[in-house]
């Protein structure tokens, strides 16, 4: 009978730490009976600590490898994405680039009803032309198609916007026969009675 836990086993094999068992094993015992050799299995703890440290180091290495350098620079995303997105190439040069060279057209346009229409809205994307004029010569738009895109009659268009039913309006004659696209309003003398 174990004097320690009152079980049938030998006191030497009892798992409960107590002064009686320590004495039975020949281990020293403190006055309050605490098991002084509680670090007997410290080797296990050291191995556990090493294993944890290895796991932590591996985790940190893997994390450093997979997470992009700039992640978290501005928030929960890759900071470098901002400069990548802003460095994409342009297709439309913007009206200022057009006006730098084509000031004469700008003068005509400013005086007319198309003053607010930017050049590339009709002439298409011309960033390449703005960068190197000789590399790309813009094609003249087909006014029969172009003008109708905006001015063809449609019930959903604002009532104040000038609209025509093109077949009735011109009978198939292309718009630029009468209208100058850059300043389309006909002169008083040109208007049909």
């Amino acid at each position, binding site marked *: 009978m174990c004097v320690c836990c009152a079980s049938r086993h030998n006191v030497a094999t009892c798992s409960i730490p107590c002064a009686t068992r320590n004495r039975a094993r020949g281990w020293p015992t403190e006055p309050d009976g605490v098991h002084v050799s509680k670090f007997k299995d410290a080797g296990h703890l050291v191995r556990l600590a090493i294993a944890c440290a290895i796991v932590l180091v591996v985790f940190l290495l893997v994390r450093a490898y997979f997470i992009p350098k700039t992640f978290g620079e501005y928030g929960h995303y890759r900071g470098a*994405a901002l400069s990548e997105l*802003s*460095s994409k190439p342009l297709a439309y040069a913007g009206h200022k680039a057009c006006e730098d060279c084509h000031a004469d057209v700008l003068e005509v346009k400013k005086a007319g009803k198309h003053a607010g229409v930017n050049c590339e809205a009709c002439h298409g994307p011309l960033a390449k032309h703005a960068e190197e004029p000789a590399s790309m010569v813009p094609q003249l738009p087909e006014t029969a198609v172009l003008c109708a895109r*905006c001015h063809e009659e*449609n019930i*959903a268009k*604002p009532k104040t916007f000038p609209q025509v039913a093109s077949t009735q309006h011109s009978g198939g004659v292309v718009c630029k026969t009468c209208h100058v696209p850059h300043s389309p309003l006909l002169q008083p003398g040109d208007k049909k009675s």
Partner: protein
Amino acid sequence: MITRRKMLMLLPAAAFAWKYVLAGTPEMASNYNRSEHWWGMLLDIDKCIGCGNCVRGCATENNVPEGYFRTWVERYHVPGWRQETPQVDSPNGGKDGFPPSTAVGGKNFFVPKMCNHCAESPCTQVCPVGATFESPDGVVLVDETYCLGCRYCIQACPYGCRFLHPTKHTAEKCSLCYHRITKGLTTACCENCPTGARQLADLKNPADPIHEFLKTHSVQVLKPYLATGAKAFYHDIDGSVR
């Protein structure tokens, strides 16, 4: 021969020169300061003529695949007083313009749609990897090199502004032409809009006319009850628009 004294004297000069070497990189060469801007868009229903220039311009500028849209135009027909049942069509996103309407009477108008660049965007909140985000200047962007293509953001967007790119298999959306606005240009849709129905708005720039417009005109955002902090402001919008 360079003495230690001369070397020490040269160091500050070298440091000063290095600053200019670094300035040659694209990131630092730009005088664009993200903290000085907060981008949004003003869309004027009264001015939209449904020409589709914005849709075509956006597709060209951003290589949007055929059949998909970063921006599109809808035509509304509200026949009676009931706002719940408008008739809406958008053939090919309005890219080819609109055929003559068969509608008679009622209210008829065009509504340009796009990403609302929400300040509290539902799409960025659901991204599991941080591939979509709100930039410091208020633009909701997608990092296509980091996107998994899980489509959570597409489901989360209450405005239907996202799609999965058919060949890249990553989420796509309006970037508010981030590559243009950071260079001092306006967006491709605004550049192409012949009537000024779309206007890029810098809500942090006091000189931007948007401030005066917002103070003096009635504007509304789409689905305000969702509290997404949408920054696409619609002028004179009808209650039937969803």
